[in-house]
Every structure is written in C-alpha cells, then in structure tokens.
C-alpha cells in the first residue's frame, strides 16, 4: 500500500470520511502532487493533516506519534 493511502486510511479511521479532503488540500498547499510525492516530506504531510483533521490538541500529539511509528515501519516493510 502507498504510504499516502495508508495515511488516508488511518485518518479516516480517526476523523471520518472528510479526512481524505484534508490530505488532498495539504498536498496542494505544499505545492506537490499525490502521484509523485517525495518520501522525505511524508512526515510533514502527516503532521499537517493530523493538525487539520483531529480537533483535540492533546489527541493530535498522540496520533502524530503513533502515525510516525506506523509510517516508519511501513517504509521498512517496503
């Protein structure tokens, strides 16, 4: 699975169906494209998306920590 798809899946689990829009907007705001998204900016995308999709600041930190781990293990797996 593509890491952005993984991020989208995890965010939908936490923030519902509108989470997909957040990721699309963040990619656009970063001036990048989903198809050839650079790997070294994945963490930045994840942090920006979480901050715009999760309401509670305390939960945001927790989610960022968990997703960072997941993305790292996903990259190792790939």
């Amino acid at each position: 699975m593509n890491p952005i798809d993984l991020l989208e899946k995890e965010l939908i689990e936490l923030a519902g169906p509108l989470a997909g829009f957040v990721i699309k907007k963040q990619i656009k705001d970063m001036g990048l494209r989903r198809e050839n998204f650079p790997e070294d900016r994945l963490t930045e995308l994840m942090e920006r998306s979480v901050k715009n999709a999760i309401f509670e600041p305390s939960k945001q930190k927790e989610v960022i920590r968990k997703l960072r781990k997941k993305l790292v293990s996903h990259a190792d797996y790939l």
Partner: protein
Amino acid sequence: MMVTGKEIVSELDERIFGKNTLSTKLFKYFLTMALLMLALPVVLDIIFEILGIKKIFYYISLPSLVLILLIFFMIYSIKELLRPINELLEQVRKLQEGKLDVNLDIGGYVEIDSLVKSVNRMRNSLFIARSFLGERDSTRDSIWKKEISHIGMYLIFLTPFLIYGITLTIVGTVLYSGALGTVVQGIVPMWEFVRAVLVIVFGVAMAFSFGYILSKAIGMPMRKLAKAAEEASRGNMDADFATKERLGDIHELSVRLHDLKEAIRRAMEEMEGSR
C-alpha cells in the same frame, strides 16, 4: 506493586462474566433481581416468625416490603444504565449547537465506548467541515421531539412488579383469612411447600420480565445505535438510526446522531462540489 480490592473485584468480575457489555450488565441485574426475589421472602418470613407476627400481616406486608426494595433496585439499575447515555446525549447536544470543545471522556460498557468513538469521529468530521466551509448553522436542525416522559418509562418497568405485588397480596389475604383460607389449606395438601414453589416461580418470572423489558428498552436499541453510529462516522451515509423503541433518552440520542450524520453528508456534498 499494590493490588487494591477494587482491582481484584474487577478482575474476578471480568473472569466470571467476560467483557463489560450491556448484555453482561443486564444479566448481572437479572441475576441480582432473581436472588433478591428468592432471598427476600425467606428472610422476611424468618424475621416475622421471630417477631411472632401473624401470618395474615406477613402476607399483606411482604409484597409491599419486597416491592419497595425492588423498586429502589429497579430505579438504581435503570439510572446506572442510562447515566453514560445521558452524559453522551448532553455532549451531542452541545456538538449540535456548534460547540466542538465537548468532553467525550465517557465510559461504562462496550456499546458506550463504541458510541463515544463514533461521536469523536463525527466531531473531527465537523471540525474538518468547519475549516473548509466556515462556521454555519448546519448542525442546528434537530427534529427531536420528546415522545415519552421518564414517568411513562418507569411505569413500563414497574408493570411486572405491580403484577407480582398484587398477586402475592391476593393469594396471601385469601389463604390466611377466615373460612376460605381454611378450606383452601384443607384442599391443597402440603400447602407450605406449594406456597414456597409459588413464591419462587413468581419471583423468577418477575426477574425475567424485568430483564426482558430492560433488554428490549435499552439493550437492543443501544446495540443498534452503536452500529449505526459507527457506520455513519466511517462514511456510510445510509446508516439507519431509526429506532422503533421510543425510550426518551435513547430515541433523542438516535435523532441527534442522525442530524449530525446529515450535517456531515451536506458538508461532504458541498466539499465535493467545490473541488
């Protein structure tokens, strides 16, 4: 590490009854009720025997005493089951008023945990919608109308207790008063044994009715609601929140969650359209 008594009890509780679901809670209430129904007449019988009170008074006052204790137990158990539902309802009302800063630190049993997770997901959806579309009144269109009062609800729960109390009073009064009582006791051999069996059968039947009504009025609609909320919060906009059961708070919660789902659907359509 110090292990507290509470931890030991909760560990034992989990080992005996398994996961803390609504059904487990209902089963525990049913069990307590059945044990109370069996033990109370015996205990009261002994007390009346010791105090030397005549049987006629025993049979007239027993149902009242049992009923008073059981009604207290019934109110306690219903309040305990509805407490987290009411807390969640309060937070959902605030969400509908547009306040996203609600306290969702509510627990109680598995179905409530699942509902809280879904409401949290819906809150995040509203948060996203707000940042994309700006603040608006889209969540303030509740069609909720109170359809049954709390008094009505308690009256439904009270029915088996009333049947039990009235039957015991009639049987007791008839058997231990005057000529009719003597006749019946003469006709029915081993009357004391028959009486004990009657008390047990009635007690268990009443506890069963109580458990059945609780399960029908709270358990089933809560499970249905938790499932619908989970589906809706994950994006299934056809999730069905309709409950046939019109129990005040659960019905209001289902209507309000349905409204939240509709607000998210509208936001989604607008966001799709503005892409």
